[in-house]
């Protein structure tokens, strides 16, 4: 008891000394000024008229890619014109976890923070539950406390930081537990490799413009015993950041769009654009593709630039709008 008491006093005294330091006082003043600036900015936004922009009924990025992409690109347009927007998703009839990830990524972009953005939750009780329990409210200001469900987790990470193996480890532990609940000892190496390679690729390619955040979200669908993963970075996209050999570059100059580059991409024939260790690098994409072929991966979709790729069937689709970033979605199902 005495040891605890001494330790407590030591910690307390160190904290009190810190509080009196010049650096501490300076930080306190800066934080106060920043809070004040934030409040003033919010008041400014409140004075402006918000444009109510209704989301597509089928609010699913993987199932209704073109419409949802257009919706978010329109919002980017409003933001660039400094127009405050209310993202109205009250009337939607379909919502998938991947769209929640995209929504968060868009709301947290640097440009988005410079204008007023507000939003609501779906009316449909099932969708509302999914939306409020997603953990999205941990990253936005809202009235009342919304507790995220333990069945899903939303992470944000900056590309100027490091590849987080521990984060991938936590996600794989959830997957291992799901399989264990059904009496299956699942080797999660492939999932871990996939997530780490996705993070690593983002670190090298996505932040060519500036440092951005990437988002990882997993959602456990108890009905279908499926874990749904969404990984997103709003960088420049795979096809805009990758280098291809001169032959493919020549073909690309004659053919509009990036669909022609899908096959070499799926075969792992993209040339790494970095200079160091060029000869031995470039196996990450192949490792991701190999994971996608595994039976337990029920769905595997990549959306980048103007292309949507179903990696399982090796089919691609030309999108009507451009998606500046890389979006990886996959489902791991116990029933497969």
């Amino acid at each position: 008891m005495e040891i605890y008491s001494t330790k407590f006093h030591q910690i307390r005294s160190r904290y009190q000394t810190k509080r009196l330091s010049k650096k501490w006082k300076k930080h306190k003043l800066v934080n106060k000024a920043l809070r004040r600036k934030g409040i003033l900015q919010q008041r400014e936004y409140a004075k402006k008229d918000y444009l109510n922009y209704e989301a597509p009924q089928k609010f699913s990025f993987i199932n209704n890619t073109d419409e949802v992409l257009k919706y978010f690109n329109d919002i980017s347009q409003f933001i660039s014109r400094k127009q405050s927007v209310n993202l109205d998703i009250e009337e939607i009839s379909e919502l998938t976890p991947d769209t929640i990830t995209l929504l968060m990524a868009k709301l947290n972009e640097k440009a988005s923070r410079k204008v007023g953005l507000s939003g609501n939750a779906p009316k449909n009780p099932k969708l509302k539950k999914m939306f409020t329990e997603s953990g999205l409210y941990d990253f936005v200001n809202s009235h009342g406390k919304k507790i995220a469900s333990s069945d899903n987790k939303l992470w944000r990470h900056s590309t100027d930081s490091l590849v987080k193996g521990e984060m991938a480890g936590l996600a794989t532990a959830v997957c291992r537990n799901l399989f264990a609940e059904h009496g299956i000892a699942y080797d999660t190496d492939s999932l871990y490799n996939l997530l780490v390679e996705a993070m690593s690729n983002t670190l090298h390619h996505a932040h060519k413009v500036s440092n951005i955040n990437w988002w990882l979200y997993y959602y456990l669908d108890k009905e279908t015993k499926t874990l749904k993963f969404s990984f997103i970075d709003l960088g420049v996209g795979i096809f805009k950041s990758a280098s291809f050999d001169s032959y493919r570059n020549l073909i690309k100059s004659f053919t509009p769009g990036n669909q022609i580059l899908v096959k070499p991409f799926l075969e792992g024939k993209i040339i790494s654009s970095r200079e160091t260790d060029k000869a031995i690098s470039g196996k990450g994409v192949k490792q991701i593709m190999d994971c996608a072929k595994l039976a337990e991966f029920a769905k595997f979709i990549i959306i980048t630039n103007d292309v949507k790729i179903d990696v399982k069937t090796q089919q691609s689709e030309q999108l009507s709008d451009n998606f500046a970033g890389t979006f990886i979605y996959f489902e791991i199902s116990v029933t497969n």
Partner: protein
Amino acid sequence: MEVKYKINVAKDFSAYPAGRFRTEGKASGEAFLLDHILGKLLLAFSEKCILEIDLTGMNGYPSSFISGSFGKISYEMGKLIGQDKASALFMKHLSLKCEDSAARIKAVQDEINTPVAIK
């Protein structure tokens, strides 16, 4: 040849290997190569003994990590003495062990034998 040196990746380094370069994190392939493998491997070569690397307990084997460690040293050695000779030398002095996944051993062996990415 006797096993004189041992490395347990999960215990001595990290159970969460990730990334190629040290700039990508403490658990990168470059950090593992320079801080753990290189010194012991050179000693194993000169003392004609075996370095045992235990891969048990790792969460996975991302290609960037394996390529940045095992692939990098095999590639650099291959530039000096030829890839076939370098791979054979590694296989002679390196013993890989893994109690929870055979795929990890194969992935490392493949990387040592073919460090250059086929494009």
